[in-house]
């Protein structure tokens, strides 16, 4: 029975490996699901909704699909598509011509299609709505004055016009529009987009610019003046996809062609902004004519579970890497000399880079791009310093007399390290791992910025929608998770730190 107690102390290190294996298991879960189709979307409501519609269309065709919400702007999505980090995303023909193909000419759909094919990218036919600039005004006012088209504005020079600053400056904006239609209005002011709707409602202005599918048009009972001279370029919504994507997935996306008119898109956008639930808005699309009762999409607990699991995968896998690399590097660093100094120096420098900047630095590199890989790498680099530093200082703090006793016994260097030095430094090493874990849980919320998901996802869409409840749906669980991890590590201390060091 006396022997048994000794064995327990010797078992401490294998237990450490067990803990690592558990984290490895978490990591394996990421790769377990067979390559799904990845749909990307831009960082605004309509793009989110279209992404959800594509995901559900694929899922209905029994094709596994994931939706990475709000990955950023045109350039990021386009690069991700070319790099293969995503397989498809919703785009607008005008944007393709101007920002991707960089031409000011109005291109036909065929011309665009041919140009994209050279990049290995395909395009669906238009989904059915044109999200271009439009001029809007109060329905009652338009009816009173008998206004239906932009040309009709010529008869009413007294109308006050409020435009976004972007529209005032754009080359397809206010100045050429005024010239084309010969508009006489002199009373034109620049005003913020959201404030403009309020100004329109209280009569401070009479006409403003808008996106033609903007949910606010229906919400505020406004009408769109018809672009009767065809001034505005077409911004028809399409899906771009990799030509190498599986054919049944391409066929499924093509079934969406011509199925979404402006009215319907406005309704979906309105639903998305009202409920803050993109899945639910997307489901409206599938419901027309059918009597589906499943309108809720994912329930909150389901979403929370998905976010949390992904969050743990990100933090867990990166922590595993930090431990696997950090402890050996810490052992090397503990020996001092130029190598030790440069290891500690490198880890410290990485720590001083702001986390956002570190992500931004990794994204353009060939291996990384917009991916979970990038998020995990950034988190791994962040988690390195506490582990390296604590391993090195834990080892250096072992008294010289004990080091020499281990040497004088005749134990080999490996056994000395494994059975004597590392267990004696275990408290310091574990506290480094704990610090690293808590930092990773917090920093992993930034992973959502590059579409890697996790609890940062609701925080990001909450920020986007200016909706505090959604922000808290991510922020509170993330904070609780950090506390939980801290507590678990305190428990782990009791298991992993040899008893003789705790008395």
């Amino acid at each position, binding site marked *: 029975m*006396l*022997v048994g*107690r*000794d064995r327990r*102390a*010797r078992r401490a290190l294998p237990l450490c490996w067990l803990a690592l294996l558990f984290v490895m298991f978490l990591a394996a879960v990421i790769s377990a699901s067979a390559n799904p189709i990845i749909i990307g979307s831009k960082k605004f409501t309509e793009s989110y909704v279209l992404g959800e519609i594509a995901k559900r269309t694929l899922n209905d065709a029994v094709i596994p699909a994931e939706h990475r919400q709000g990955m950023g702007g045109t350039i990021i999505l386009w690069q991700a598509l070319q790099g293969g980090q995503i397989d498809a995303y919703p785009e607008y023909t005008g944007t393709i011509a101007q920002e991707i193909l960089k031409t000011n000419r109005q291109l036909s759909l065929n011309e665009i299609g041919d140009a994209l094919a050279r990049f290995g990218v395909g395009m669906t036919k238009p989904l059915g709505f044109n999200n271009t600039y439009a001029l809007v005004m109060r329905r009652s006012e338009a009816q009173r004055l008998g206004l239906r088209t932009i040309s009709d504005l010529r008869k009413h020079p007294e109308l006050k016009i409020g435009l976004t600053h972007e529209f005032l400056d754009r080359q397809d904006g206010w100045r050429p529009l005024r010239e084309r239609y010969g508009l006489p209005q002199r009373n034109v002011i620049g005003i913020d987009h959201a404030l403009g709707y309020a100004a329109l409602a209280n009569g401070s202005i009479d006409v403003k610019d808008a996106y033609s599918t903007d949910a606010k048009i229906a919400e505020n009972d406004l009408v769109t003046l018809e672009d009767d001279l065809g001034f505005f370029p077409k911004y028809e919504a399409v899906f771009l996809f990799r030509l190498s994507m599986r054919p049944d997935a391409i066929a499924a996306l093509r079934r969406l062609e011509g199925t979404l008119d402006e009215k319907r898109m406005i309704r979906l956008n309105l639903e998305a902004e009202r409920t803050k639930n993109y899945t639910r808005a997307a489901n409206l699309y599938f419901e027309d004519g059918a009597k589906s009762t499943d309108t809720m999409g994912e329930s909150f607990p389901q979403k929370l579970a998905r976010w949390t699991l992904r969050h743990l995968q990100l933090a867990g896998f990166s922590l595993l890497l930090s431990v696997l690399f950090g402890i050996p590097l810490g052992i090397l660093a503990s020996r001092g000399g130029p190598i030790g100094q440069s290891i500690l120096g490198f880890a410290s420098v990485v720590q001083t880079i702001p986390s956002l900047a570190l992500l931004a630095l990794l994204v353009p590199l060939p291996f990384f791009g917009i991916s979970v890989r990038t998020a995990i790498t950034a988190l791994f680099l962040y988690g390195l310093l506490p582990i390296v530093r604590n391993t090195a200082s834990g080892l250096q703090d072992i008294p010289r*007399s*004990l080091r*020499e*006793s*281990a*040497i*004088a*016994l*005749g*134990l*080999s260097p490996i*056994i000395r390290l494994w*059975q*004597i030095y590392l*267990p*004696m430094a*275990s408290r310091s090493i574990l506290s480094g791992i704990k610090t690293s874990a808590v930092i990773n849980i917090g920093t992993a919320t930034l992973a959502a910025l590059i579409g890697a998901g996790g609890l940062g996802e609701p925080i990001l869409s909450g920020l986007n929608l200016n909706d505090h409840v959604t922000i808290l749906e991510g922020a509170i669980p993330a904070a609780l998770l950090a506390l939980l991890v801290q507590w678990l590590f305190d428990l782990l201390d009791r298991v992993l730190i*040899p*008893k*003789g*060091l705790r*008395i």
Partner: protein
Amino acid sequence: MSALVKLADVSKRYAGAQALHSTNLSIERGKTTLLIGPSGCGKSTLLRLMIGLIAPDSGTIAFNDLTITPTNIDSLRRRIGYVIQEGGLFPHLTARANVLLMARYLGKSQEEMQSRLMELCELTRFSDTLLSRYPVELSGGQRQRVSLMRALMLSPELLLLDEPLGALDPLVRASLQKDLKEIFARLQQTVLFVTHDLGEAIYFGDEIVLMNEGRIVQKGSASDLREKPAEPFVSEFINAQRGVVLT
């Protein structure tokens, strides 16, 4: 009797200071040799050279007529026991695990280890009920007994003790001195014992080696040192500690 350890022209220099001048010394088998001298006289340096914790700048050290080299040092260390002032016990291991560490590493059988452990407990008067305690749970004297058991576990040919009783209070120290002397006699152990205390040296020493400033000043019995001092320093050293020499 032939010498177990032979140092030939061994010297050691630390940054700036000559810790040990060219030195010759033989440790006789079965005897307790006491290495004594004031702080910084080179006695610990001599000990650390023998166990290979530091390498000599010049000269050779032979163990059993075999010259110590970096390649054979680990196997030689297993034939040498080493006890330091604070005991050098590993705090994360129990007394038992500390004692058995090396035997386990060498893959000795459970029965062999257990019977040797019981033998050592009896020899060092250490209660086997305390074996499952961790070093922090033991008194200073108990720790030194465990450390001695660890050093004796593999029945070493040579036992090196570096001021093993230096940190103990006088009563514990006296009882350990008595036990140690009995153990050495019973095992006919070859011992090299470093101390700065003349009384202890005289109590243990078959042979006393007095060192000063990196040199061996005189080697001989206690009475040799008293009656035939090789140089004035010997008398000076003896007179300075006369108060505690009661014999």
